[in-house]
């Protein structure tokens, strides 16, 4: 059940994914990744999508504004090892 929780709390975990059609948001502890494409069409459905996306982005903004931020989040570089398969 834990990994199926639908409450998306930005930067809280590495698991959640919300998908809107071909567009998705992935939760990471150091970022929220948005990927894919989406049409905001000039109709009721387009408006509904636009509102959901805006709510989502505002929620991420609020989360960022609520914490002390560094200039740039650090990355952990991978290490090089001898290839065990060669």
């Amino acid at each position, binding site marked *: *059940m834990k*990994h*199926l*929780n*639908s*409450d*998306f*709390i*930005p930067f*809280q*975990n*590495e*698991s*959640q*994914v*919300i*998908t*809107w*059609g*071909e567009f*998705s948001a*992935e939760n*990471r*502890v*150091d970022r929220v*990744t948005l*990927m*894919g*494409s989406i*049409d905001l069409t000039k109709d009721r*459905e387009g*408006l*509904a*999508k636009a*509102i*959901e996306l*805006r*709510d*989502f982005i*505002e*929620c*991420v903004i*609020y*989360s960022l504004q*609520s914490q002390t931020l560094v200039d740039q*989040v*650090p*990355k*952990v570089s*991978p*290490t*090089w*090892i*001898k*290839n*065990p*398969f*060669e």
Partner: protein
Amino acid sequence: MTACSRGMLTTEFRLFMETDQCALLKPLHSLLLERPYLAQTSPAPLCSLLKSGFNQRVTFVAFFLLFLTSLHSFAYEVGTTPKGNASGGCPEFFLGGVAPRVLNTKLQPGYRQLCFSGFSVGYSPISKTPLWSAEHLTRESLRMAKGLRRVNAFHEETRLPEQDRAFLSDYAHSGFDRGHMSPSADQSSERAQEESFSLANMVPQNSNNNRHIWEGIESATRTWTKSQGELFILTGPLFLGSHVQQLKGRVMVPTHIFKLIYDPQQRKASAYMVLNEATDDYKVIGLGELEKLSGIDLIPFLQTDQKNTLIDLPRPTPHQEHKNSGWD
């Protein structure tokens, strides 16, 4: 902490917003938006209060899925395959019902096959990645996949012993995407889609690569399935060269990624192969060449002389699918 789920805002606010212009309402919008966040010290009660019918349905579906998954784990547990039966327990994903066979002995320690409802993987506890992920795509299965709403979660593969698993924390702060080998968008049921987010189906993938060239290859494969009727697909990483990169001293980063496609109409296979880096380049190689690089007999059902003819694979077409798909 604030939950960004659908149904986060109050109904009256949502109705209000839907009947007016966003710009004019900005001050009020901000005020209303801030109200729930003031209670952020106790997010759990806040979430229950704000949860819409949608979220309750999702919760129910989630419990139901968990129930199915727990049954499924018993039904589909598969042991190590080199000595097991040829299909590893899920023949439907392989040409002739025969699963790939690992030839390079250095790939073999701890290697095992796992069956899922929409795909199967051959997993290495050394790389902590799949070595291949197999699907049998059909026009009909893709028709069912289209339009599936997705609220999913990347998760560790609990059917693997803990010391063999990749952990979510292995990928954290790495800058790499968790790249699906069998893509979520190919899956024709919610259960299969949820299962595709298992880390046993993931490799560390360059983010630009995952989102552009690779997405294009996945899209082109689906489009081609629709025209051909059915295809057998094997997707996996290659670890080439004397040294490779590793995340957190645990998960190996592939140097290349391949997607092998067998077309039953032409009775031939070829593979897309890309470097695991920010690139728009790809090449098409034959099955024989790919097998030499991977150290795996990927389609044991085919004779050697059937493995060396190239077929034309469609050009990658990023984001060309589902242009008119529904919201849900």
